[in-house]
């Protein structure tokens, strides 16, 4: 089985070197590493050229400004039976390719969703790491049992190349192409496996501004995909999960802001109970990821949850009520890894 790694990148001079090293130094080497430079304006290209024949470097004709365009272009150069998608700021664990190969030996599996960890930097990245720990060890595991993985992460996904090329057309009409692919794969009846041992480390926003902008992209993309794939799904697990996540998000986000106006005393009591429940989950996440810094990020985590709720409602209003389809891709600032 020939395995390729496809890495779209734009202005990744601070992170691309470690990303490529992690792809090269795999326990089971990838047969091909295709790096697609989306007309970077910094030192990304000169860094990539130093890797010589170890990677296949291709360039877009002009900056596309959108990851799905870059992936579509790069897929033309992929020759492997299976291709792994990752990002220019992501580090793959040493046995990532080996684990993907084992999963793909099962011919019924079409795609594999890996496990994403956030690189440690400050309290904001710790909060993101808490979210990853809870969502991947509880939510995603439950989705695995319901036979509906909500999303194959763009930083840690693997697909069968030929079927992807022939059946999955890139549509570039949402801000979260990974959600779009995943929903389409489910509708086509392809089997998606979730493997928590296929681990990668990614860089998440480290400033509040870039965090907010990324959440805007994620939630805008989420609502865009919800509207795009709104047909009643045949999979009961899919219908259940979509209803649960979007409806709960909407109802509780509204309640979070309206309750204090309706009954301040009751909302304070509910808030304290909510904080206690979050504390339990944060302890779970800290234990699971061996990250004691999660405990200290708890107050920030609760604050970011309310910010998330606000942005979720804001994007619901913009994408669903007003019908404004925002396709401006936001790229968070990078720090050296």
């Amino acid at each position: 089985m020939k395995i390729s790694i496809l890495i779209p990148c734009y202005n990744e001079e601070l992170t691309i070197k470690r990303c490529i090293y992690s792809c090269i130094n795999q326990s089971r080497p990838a047969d091909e590493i295709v790096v697609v430079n989306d007309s970077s304006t910094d030192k990304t290209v000169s860094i990539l050229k130093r890797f010589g024949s170890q990677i296949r470097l291709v360039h877009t004709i002009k900056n596309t400004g959108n990851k799905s365009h870059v992936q579509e272009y790069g897929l033309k150069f992929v020759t492997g039976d299976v291709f792994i998608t990752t990002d220019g700021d992501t580090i793959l664990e040493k046995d990532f390719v080996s684990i993907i190969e084992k999963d793909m030996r099962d011919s019924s599996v079409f795609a594999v969703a890996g496990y994403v960890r956030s690189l440690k930097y400050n309290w904001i990245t710790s909060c993101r790491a808490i979210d990853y720990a809870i969502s991947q060890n509880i939510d995603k595991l439950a989705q695995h049992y319901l036979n509906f993985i909500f999303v194959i992460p763009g930083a840690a996904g693997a697909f069968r190349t030929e079927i992807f090329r022939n059946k999955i057309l890139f549509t570039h009409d949402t801000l979260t192409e990974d959600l779009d692919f995943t929903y389409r794969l489910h509708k086509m009846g392809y089997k998606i496996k979730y493997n928590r041992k296929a681990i990668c480390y990614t860089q998440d926003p480290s400033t509040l501004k870039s965090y907010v902008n990324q959440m805007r992209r994620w939630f805008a993309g989420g609502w865009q995909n919800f509207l795009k794939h709104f047909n009643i799904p045949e999979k009961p697990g899919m219908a259940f999960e979509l209803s649960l996540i979007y409806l709960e998000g909407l109802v509780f986000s509204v309640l979070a802001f309206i309750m204090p106006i309706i009954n301040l005393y009751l909302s304070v009591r509910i808030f304290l109970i909510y904080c206690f429940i979050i504390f339990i989950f944060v302890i779970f996440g800290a234990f699971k990821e061996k990250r004691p810094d999660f405990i200290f990020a708890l107050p920030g985590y609760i604050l970011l949850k309310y910010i998330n709720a606000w942005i979720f409602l804001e994007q619901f209003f913009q994408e669903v009520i007003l019908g404004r389809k925002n396709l401006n891709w936001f790229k968070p600032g990078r720090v050296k890894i």
Partner: protein
Amino acid sequence: MIPPLLGPSTLIHVFIVIIGKTANYAKQILKKKKNGAKIISLIIMLSVLLLIFGFFYYAIRSSVKSDKSNLNIMQNLLAN
């Protein structure tokens, strides 16, 4: 996309995971792929599930009893 808030969906998912893992362990034990640790984990999970359901059963029963006794008191007051 990560859910915006930690809500009932996460708690529901916890139940699904416990039930799913319990079913998996049970399947493996039935296929005779058992080992001591898996049997102990299965017993613990079943106990947790029983405790959770027992708690909800007790809570609902207490609530119903309390409603019934409140109803009786109201009826007595109205009769008087």
